[in-house]
């Protein structure tokens, strides 16, 4: 076997493909416009969520359990507290560049650049970041947004954290952590280093307190739902349901959930196995059989029956498909 055989096979397979769209330009134009309209609606919903979610958040103070006793200097930034390890330094910057981060430094930044242009070598080519693999941390006020299907949702220090590998080009050792139940632009942490070091550094952070679970024991839900948005395979593109029948079924299914998960019994909701649904003011994430629990960003964590996430996803996809057909048919 040689590589030219592989190329030949892939070429043959590729050339056998004929797109089903007979007028792709018109189709993509229609879908593109629809996507822009959705994004505008999404942003409007997100703004409403910020207003609602910001209210119950109470800033934690340095000295909470879990932080006591760690050597270092406490620093507060953007509603987050971190105990800077002895021997490390802090650096306040406007735009954090992960590629040029110095080891043993805690950066405090307003925002971060995914791939700053000054990291790219003159004339292009591979970006080699000296910061890759080195231990450092950055607290950034903007730039890490909540995702509908986060890589992991873990409970840390009573806070639900969205954990994702940053995948920053050239800095593969970086992971991001942000409160999932906080406002859209919540302060987040970027932490670099091996897994053990990242865990140690994460332990030094105290996050804002999460919203309390509702007294009923269920999930906090909006009083009225005007849309339900999720992402769907294969490309995990955004799909949305707006018809009243679908929305009523979704809300009823979520409102029925009333079996709260006791403290300490929360499992890790993984994006590969969970379904995230934005219903206006809050997002609900439902796990599968590996973690049969659901959370609401408005508060609450409950046990769920098997297959509920799949069922609700199916409802939204069907509704979206029907709307798309109506919008694009001649």
């Amino acid at each position, binding site marked *: 076997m040689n590589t030219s055989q592989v190329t030949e096979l892939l070429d043959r397979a590729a050339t056998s493909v004929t797109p089903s769209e007979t007028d792709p330009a*018109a189709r*993509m134009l229609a879908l*593109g416009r629809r996507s822009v309209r959705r994004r505008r609606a999404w942003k409007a919903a997100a703004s409403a969520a910020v207003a609602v979610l910001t209210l119950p958040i109470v800033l934690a103070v340095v000295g909470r359990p879990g932080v006591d006793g760690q050597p270092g200097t406490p620093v507060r930034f953007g509603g987050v507290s971190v105990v800077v390890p002895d021997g490390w330094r802090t650096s306040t910057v406007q735009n954090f560049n992960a590629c040029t981060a110095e080891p043993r430094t805690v950066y405090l930044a307003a925002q971060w650049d995914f791939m700053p242009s000054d990291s790219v070598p003159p004339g292009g080519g591979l970006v080699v970041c000296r910061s890759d693999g080195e231990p450092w941390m950055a607290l950034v006020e903007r730039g890490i947004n909540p995702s509908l299907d986060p890589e992991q949702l873990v409970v840390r220090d009573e806070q639900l954290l969205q954990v994702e590998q940053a995948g920053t080009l*050239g800095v593969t050792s970086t992971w991001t952590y942000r409160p999932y139940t906080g406002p859209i632009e919540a302060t987040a942490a970027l932490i670099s280093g091996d897994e053990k070091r990242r865990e140690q550094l994460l332990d030094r952070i105290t996050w804002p307190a999460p919203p309390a679970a509702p007294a009923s024991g269920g999930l906090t839900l909006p009083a009225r739902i005007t849309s339900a948005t999720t992402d769907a395979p294969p490309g995990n593109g955004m799909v949305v349901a707006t018809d009243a029948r679908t929305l009523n079924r979704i809300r009823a299914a979520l409102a029925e959930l009333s079996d709260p998960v006791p403290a300490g019994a929360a499992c890790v909701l993984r994006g590969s196995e969970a379904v995230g649904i934005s219903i206006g003011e809050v997002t609900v994430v439902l796990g599968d059989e590996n973690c049969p629990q659901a959370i609401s960003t408005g508060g609450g964590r409950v046990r769920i029956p098997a297959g509920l996430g799949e069922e609700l996803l199916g409802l939204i996809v069907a509704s979206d498909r029907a709307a798309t057909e109506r919008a694009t048919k001649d």
Partner: protein
Amino acid sequence: MGLLRGAGPAGYEDFVAGRYREIVRFGALLAGDSRLGEDLAQEGLIAAYRSWSRLGAPDGRPEAYVRQVMIRAAMRARRRRWRGEVPTEQLPDTSRRGFAEQVDLSVQVFAGLRRLPADQRVVLVLRFWADASEAEVAQTLGVAVGTVKSRTSRALAALRASGLFIESARETL
């Protein structure tokens, strides 16, 4: 209701009309399925529509952007159940068949691709179809070069075990 032409951002429709087939083919290889590949292509092109004010510039490189979106979507799909896909459990044992008995080769290639984990499939397509170097693939995916090597090696081993290479070689004799 008919769809109006010529009302989109300047150059977008021409780009789609000119490159759609090749972009779908790239998607088909990434997904291991032509229908899912077209879904991936459309997701990339929708993203391009939203960013066309930047991509439509002379140095905008819209196809590179579309491909990057498609790759990321294909990799993300790795972490989700791929509900629309029905993977083939067992490939036909082509190693014991003669060329005359062979079913359409391209169908078998796609079946072989579908059996690969998405991260291996993406690496294979980028290396051997898009002709990217190991370093370029590593940078595109945000992984180490060693990871690219190991994924390539595993993907080739899986395809070798499927017997596709033997049949392909026979056919080209």
